């Protein structure tokens, strides 16, 4: 399941809703990404997340489908916010459930790694020296490359 929204989300409630009525799930891994108050030595006052409506959902759905193809997952949830955020605010939630904990961990990490290099979101930070667009990180490309299949 994927959701792209302006509103905040409650990780505990999201995880609980995903598990509701199911007693066959052995392990749930989740990742929450948050806005940090510092970046590159500068204080961050706010962050605006722009995205490409339509393509975002399509890419997230493709990433979810790929994860389900690769690992035996009982449930998947991706929630990603857009709009204006403050330091400490939640940006993204990825939840994977499986009876195999390795699968839950691997799939969760795969989802966040791929999402970071494929989902069309762009972060603009408001710093004390003005606004600036966040540059893509080589380390994110490398993290995503781990999951490439030949």
């Amino acid at each position, binding site marked *: 399941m994927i959701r792209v929204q302006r509103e905040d989300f409650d990780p505990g409630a999201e995880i609980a809703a995903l598990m509701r009525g199911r007693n066959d799930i052995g392990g749930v891994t989740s990742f929450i*990404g948050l806005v940090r108050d510092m970046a590159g030595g500068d204080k961050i006052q706010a962050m605006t*997340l*722009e*995205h*490409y409506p*339509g*393509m975002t959902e*399509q*890419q997230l759905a493709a990433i979810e489908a790929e994860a389900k193809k690769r690992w035996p997952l009982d449930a998947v949830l991706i929630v*990603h916010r857009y709009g204006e955020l403050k330091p400490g605010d939640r*940006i*993204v939630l990825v939840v994977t459930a499986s009876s195999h904990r390795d699968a839950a961990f691997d799939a969760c990490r795969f989802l*966040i790694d791929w*999402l*970071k*290099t*494929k*989902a*069309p*979101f*762009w*972060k*603009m930070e408001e710093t004390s020296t003005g606004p600036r*667009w*966040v*540059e*893509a*990180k080589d380390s*994110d490309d490398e993290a995503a490359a781990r999951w490439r299949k030949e």
Partner: protein
Amino acid sequence: MGWGASPHYISLMKLLYFAWLRQKIGTAEESLDPPGSIATVAQLIDWLKTRGPNYVDALTNTKLVRVAVNREYVTYDHRLKPGDEIALFPPVTGG
């Protein structure tokens, strides 16, 4: 079929720009009618750069220009079809 072999007429195309590409070009969305010789993404970008210094500024460093056609990532040699929705944007930074 070589990519110059059969230039086809591309009628009105929807162009979308995001993040600093949007800011540099000065619009988020436009409908354009490029000449019929424009068959690929690379040709479209070259043609856009003839439209003004704002396009040159946004599109010169193609290492920083990603392209999606109809919401799927494509490479610069991708062939365009009439009615395509073409989005140009910097490397993504979500998550």
